[in-house]
């Protein structure tokens, strides 16, 4: 009897030790929980490495990383925007990456070489197909206010000024056309009394519900709604227009991270065909590695890339865009 107890005790202790020995990865995610959670669990099953995730917006995480300084428990920063990664890189928070990782993606490897692009999304215009024909929609995002004015869409335009991709797009306008033009565009938009939504799905749901008629968004949100059976229009502006801005999501290793091996493995995992297929299938984003089956309803990757203006994504003037949005009372 006693021997059995001792054995059980030893067994439990061994199990406890084993669990404690299991490496744990701490991930700070600027991407949403509904997207990250299944992938993190899959990674755990595939590798036996435990993943702890802290969710937040890119801005929140950047701030947390700076406040935490050297005490930060984070190993990986997986961001929603290249802008946030660029800032993290500029502030010396990220580790330079090895060649084996950087050679994986087909494009968009940043000059700083301190993070890898993981997926790609395009800005597009989502609209109610019962209201507009595709050919009558404006050719440039900058013409959107005039178009909306002429069609009497005051109070019927949606936007998401608190969302990082929208803020990146405003930064894109500043980078391509100057701050004066960006200010003018925002003021014209404001004159349309647009409805501000906290998230893109909420805005698309409003277009579906007939509350507003159109709004600039990321392409995969429209894909997601279409897959759910809702009729939503997806409009690309003319080639090279800022309204088609291609935005990468990406991930980097933090200098403070204590689990380098596990963290590198996670980044490699994100660029594996399996994970990339998940991004395409479950979210509708564009993959950045070869060997992934893409959605036939989407533009092929090359065409999509041609639509986007050429920009150094790490140098998007995000601070300037935020200052402008705040100055105009939009934020």
């Amino acid at each position: 009897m006693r021997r059995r107890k001792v054995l059980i005790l030893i067994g439990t202790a061994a199990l406890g030790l084993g669990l404690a020995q299991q490496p744990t990865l701490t991930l700070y995610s600027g991407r949403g929980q509904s997207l990250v959670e299944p992938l993190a669990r899959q990674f755990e099953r595939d590798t036996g490495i435990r993943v702890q995730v802290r969710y937040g917006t890119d801005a929140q995480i950047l701030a947390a990383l700076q406040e935490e300084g050297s005490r930060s428990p984070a190993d990986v920063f997986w961001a929603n925007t290249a802008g946030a990664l660029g800032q993290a890189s500029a502030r010396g928070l990220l580790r330079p990456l090895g060649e084996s990782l950087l050679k994986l993606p087909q494009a968009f490897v940043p000059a700083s070489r301190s993070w890898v692009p993981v997926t790609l999304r395009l800005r597009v215009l989502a609209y109610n197909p019962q209201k507009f024909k595709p050919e009558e929609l404006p050719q440039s995002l900058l013409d959107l206010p005039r178009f909306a004015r002429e069609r009497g869409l005051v109070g019927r335009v949606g936007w998401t000024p608190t969302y990082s991709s929208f803020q990146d797009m405003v930064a894109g306008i500043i980078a391509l056309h100057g701050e004066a033009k960006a200010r003018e565009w925002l003021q014209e938009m404001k004159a349309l009394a647009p409805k501000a939504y906290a998230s893109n799905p909420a805005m698309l749901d409003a277009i579906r519900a007939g509350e507003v008629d159109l709004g600039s968004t990321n392409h995969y949100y429209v894909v997601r709604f279409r897959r759910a059976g809702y009729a939503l229009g997806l409009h690309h502006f003319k080639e090279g227009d800022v309204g088609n801005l291609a935005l990468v999501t990406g991930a980097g290793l933090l200098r403070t991270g204590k689990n380098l091996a596990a963290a590198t493995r996670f980044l490699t995992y994100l660029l594996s065909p399996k994970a990339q297929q998940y991004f395409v299938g479950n979210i509708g984003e564009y993959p950045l590695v070869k060997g992934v089956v893409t959605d036939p309803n989407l533009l092929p990757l090359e065409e999509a890339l041609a639509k986007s203006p050429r920009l150094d994504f790490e140098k998007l003037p995000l601070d300037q865009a935020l200052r402008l949005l705040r100055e105009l009372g939009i934020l």
Partner: protein
Amino acid sequence: MTLRLPHLPGLLPFLLPAVLTGGGVALPLLYLVLRALEAEPQALKEILLRPKNLELLGNTLALLLGVLLLTTCLAFPLAFLTTRTDLKGKRLLATLLALPLALPGYVGAYVLLAATGPGGVLPLPRLEGYGGALLVLSFLTYPYLFLPLRAAFLGLDPSLEEAARTLGLGPLRAFLRATLPQLLPALLGGYLVVGLHVLGDFGTVSLLRYETFSYAIYLQYSAAFDRVYAAWLALFLLLLTGGLLLLEALLLRRLSLARTGKGSGRRARLVRLGRLAPWAYLLALLPVLLALVLPLYALFHLASRFPRENLQGLLEALLHSALAAGPASALAVGMALPIAYLAVRYPSFPARLLERLAYLGYAVPPLAFGLAWVFFSLKGLPFLYGSLPLLLVVLAFHFLAESLGPIRGALHQVPKRLEEAARTLGETPTGAFLRVTLPLLWRGAAAGGALAFIGAVKELPLTLLLAPMGYSTLATRVFSYTQEAMFAEAAPFALLIALLSAAFVGVLLWSERRF
């Protein structure tokens, strides 16, 4: 007994936790002020003179006034009908009318968004913005006005109104001049609580897209990361709250309503409704239908589309909510006990001050309070930042005031003589409290704990700001799913919040029963 110097050593076990509690409320607020003042002059000028501030002020005040008006229109007649008329089934109605307390505002907003508009459960246009926020907040907070008004109606002495009538006033003027002033304390107390809820609300207004101060604070903190402006917005919000507290205190001053004559008060005669009765039922059933039946129906309807594979997330969130709310409510009771004891047994200036501080923790809008703690902990207690203990302590600080009321009430009913007898037998104040008083207090403590628990389960902004990494509760899950318009995914989480809260409303009703 008042607090005197010789008492101090014996009371130290009470004073110490009480003072720590006071510090926990006051210190982070102080730090918020310091943080806000850190701004450079130029930035400060930009922040203070933003036209947006006026817009936010206007929006916040418009919502506040609208909700106070609408809750009055609901709570006043309902309290009258369920106390002073011959309506059948008054008690059951009163219980049903109090139940919307179990639903937090963001769940109401979510139901409104999911149920209306094309494809919704109800054939109604999408209601949002001011109208939506007004409806949701009014229908979910009117119980805070309804319950005190009911108590006031029940305790009302009809002889005053009768005296006014004999002096030649008509029924209406007699009501206005004799009865209404007697209801004033209940009315103002209720207004204060409803007002604090409106000022502090963040989930409802952000889901329904109506920009108030608390919405703007979260936006500046999380989307546009500007902590200085967020701190200033939090201070503006504190000023508004302070104004509300001051106004209530001023209006209540020099109001003397106690009976001065001999003899006891009489019960008022019941008003016969007669043919008006069906209308009265209609009025009473409207909030039950809108604030209870409809949300539950919509949630069950949506939950049937819940994907099975998310079940584990549901259990995890339930566990997280219980692990946060349980210890936090126990802690709140533990903090409330010494403060209530000092306030009841040793009424004095320091005791009153401590009690006021506890109420201040409740009156500070949660977002401002949470933000203050974020700043304060990062600077002063960095090892605590992002840890579960910090979340527990801050939740306890905030909901402490809700526990204080029932515990004070119970303490008033424990005869002081029992304690004094224990003292003459050689017990210290602490020993007498622990061995004699505490065992008689547990019903009050259970009620106080239940109130704090309900509050903590429903709480959103403090949890969003202070929860450890990856720690998602029922509340944060509902909020993040609904923000993404994933209504079916959110439904079971919202239902669990409602069920948990309702269960503790049950504890509350049970603990109020007397043998």
